[in-house]
């Protein structure tokens, strides 16, 4: 184990996988000579050469489809977006091509492609560069969607995503790249897709949260434990599709209460799906309505004070926990 950043963990995952399998290549804007817009691909061009670490023109639709075509003939592309906001220009390639190729061909094609890059809130880059579109991709059958919150999860999940034979949308937290964690150096360290992790055990209320808000959620859990004596069980699904609902349901059956937190907008969000899964399969166990804490239902504002209140803060999560536990 070594304490490294989320950025370094991703870099390790890329390097280890590319060493292991010559069919893997990385492609995107600034991934090579510039060493990655967020330095995730540092050193890879020098190590693997330009056919395997390929700088692309600013043409998201073009290089997304390029990846799909290469995957159709058996290569394992990793397509990097400078941010997932720019991938909006490529969504036809992700939704209409990558997600459906296996189905439309009656199973003739595998789609071993990973689409990755920074997602979610960022610092004062405003509405076009700062948003969490997790639920858009999780909506689409044929895609898998992964959103790690820690360096350890980032490494283990990216390696699994690259080895997966389905198209994976891999959402890295733009504000998480500098965060640190204990990360195994073992090259066989993998975290399977579709497995939730209990990030903090508890008994009184379940909290479901993924990506960056996990850190606010853990803060909130600490606050309510100290101030209200409430024991919060924090679960990070890590994979949004397919989501490991059973770990969440087991917890809710034990705590009888639940708060769901996400950075994205509230309408048709990831949390809406989690709430549906819980009410469908654990309705009788609930002692209170499930609360959701989400990003504000507004484009991300530039002004620092507004931006601060636009995304889930520990304070809002504390409020939701107290409300759900009838402690107001």
């Amino acid at each position: 184990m070594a304490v490294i950043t989320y950025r370094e963990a991703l870099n390790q995952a890329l390097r280890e996988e590319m060493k292991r399998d010559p069919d893997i290549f990385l492609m995107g804007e600034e991934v090579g000579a510039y060493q990655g817009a967020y330095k995730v691909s540092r050193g890879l061009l020098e190590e693997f050469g330009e056919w395997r670490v390929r700088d692309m023109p600013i043409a998201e639709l073009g290089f997304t489809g390029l990846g799909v075509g290469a995957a159709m003939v058996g290569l394992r592309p990793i397509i990097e977006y400078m941010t997932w906001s720019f991938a909006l220009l490529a969504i036809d390639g992700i939704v209409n091509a990558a997600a459906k190729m296996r189905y439309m061909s009656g199973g003739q094609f595998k789609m071993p492609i990973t689409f990755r890059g920074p997602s979610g809130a960022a610092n004062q880059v405003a509405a076009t560069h700062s948003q969490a579109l997790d639920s858009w991709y999780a909506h689409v059958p044929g895609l898998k969607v992964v959103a790690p919150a820690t360096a350890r999860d980032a490494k283990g999940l990216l390696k699994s995503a690259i080895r997966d034979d389905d198209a994976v949308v891999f959402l890295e937290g733009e504000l998480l790249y500098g965060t640190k964690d204990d990360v195994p150096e073992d090259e066989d360290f993998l975290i399977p897709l579709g497995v939730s992790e209990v990030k903090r055990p508890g008994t009184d209320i379940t909290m479901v949260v993924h990506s960056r808000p996990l850190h606010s959620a853990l803060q909130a859990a600490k606050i309510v434990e100290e101030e209200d004596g409430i024991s919060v069980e924090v679960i990070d699904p890590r994979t949004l599709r397919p989501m490991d609902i059973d770990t969440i349901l087991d917890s809710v059956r034990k705590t009888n209460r639940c708060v769901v937190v996400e950075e994205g907008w509230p309408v048709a969000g990831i949390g809406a799906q989690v709430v549906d899964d819980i009410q469908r399969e654990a309705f009788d166990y609930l002692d209170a309505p499930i609360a959701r804490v989400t990003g504000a239902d507004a484009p991300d504002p530039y002004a620092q004070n507004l931006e601060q209140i636009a995304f889930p803060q520990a304070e809002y999560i504390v409020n939701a926990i107290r409300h759900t536990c009838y402690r107001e």
Partner: protein
Amino acid sequence: MATRITQTDELLGLDRDALIEMLRWMVLGRRYEQKAAEAYQMGEIGGFCHLYIGQEAVAVGAITPLRDEDYVITAYRDHVHGLVRGMDPGAIMAELYGRIDGCSKGKGGSMHLFDTEVNFMGGHAIVGGHLPIAVGIGYAIRYRDSDAVCICFLGDSVANIGAFNESLNMAALLQLPIVFVIENNQYGMGTAVHRAAAIENLADRACAYEGMQGWTIDGMDVLEVRRTIEASIERARNHKLPTLVEAKTYRFVGHSMSDPNYGHYRTKEEVHSFKSNDDPIKRYIEQLKNHSMISDADLEEIEKEVKVIVDQSIEFASQSPAPPPSELYTDIYANEYPDMKRRDPWR
């Protein structure tokens, strides 16, 4: 700048068998689709069904010179490309019928034909969406140091979409072995090319990409198509250079089965004029006759052979069962994904 290759009277040094083979493909394409149109009228085929009648010289002239290891990719007017590439005619018809023995188990339909056995890479129904995919195939070819080439057919309307520039730029930049073949059938659905493209010859756009050659040709002359594609394949295979070919052609039928052959956007006279003066099959037969390569008896023989194939494919499709309901939830992921059923308990 693009050059216009003039019509050839030569037979490209092809032997009689090869020449007749091309005619057989053209006639098969024509008869196969005429039968598909009948099946559509009878309700056996649903959805969008885009016929290729009138354009056969392009697919036949472009696909017949390919090797087995080469790749073919096209848009949604794809039946004849699949046939000529060597797909099973029964499997294509069963796909149109939405049956389990269709090439995609009935899940793709007319616009999404695929066959990995013959490197037929689709069948893509979003205009422009398959150009980047073709570039990816070209990238994989070079990644593996293979001598294969990828031939990518596209409609005239694709020349105006962003993916066209992104793809041609990448193909030229990375020196990929791709032949882009614009099938300019004069209309993007109901919009005439001159109302959509600010250029007369679409292949002139090749001049925007270093190393790319642009050729505008008569797409009704199957030998001219073949000659141009052979030259393009040579550039791709031996020099890793992409080419943009524009084959001027004409569709004798509507955009899809729901579009009449003529009406608001083109006149009856125009369609009839193309059919009588510029039918690629008639023109080719005339060329072959001028060189004494074919007799009326040979033609009858071809029609007979083709009829057997078409009838058998209809028979095969009609006999094939519909996909069982369990197929709804297969082929979405590599492994079964239980949540889909769990979240859908009432179906």
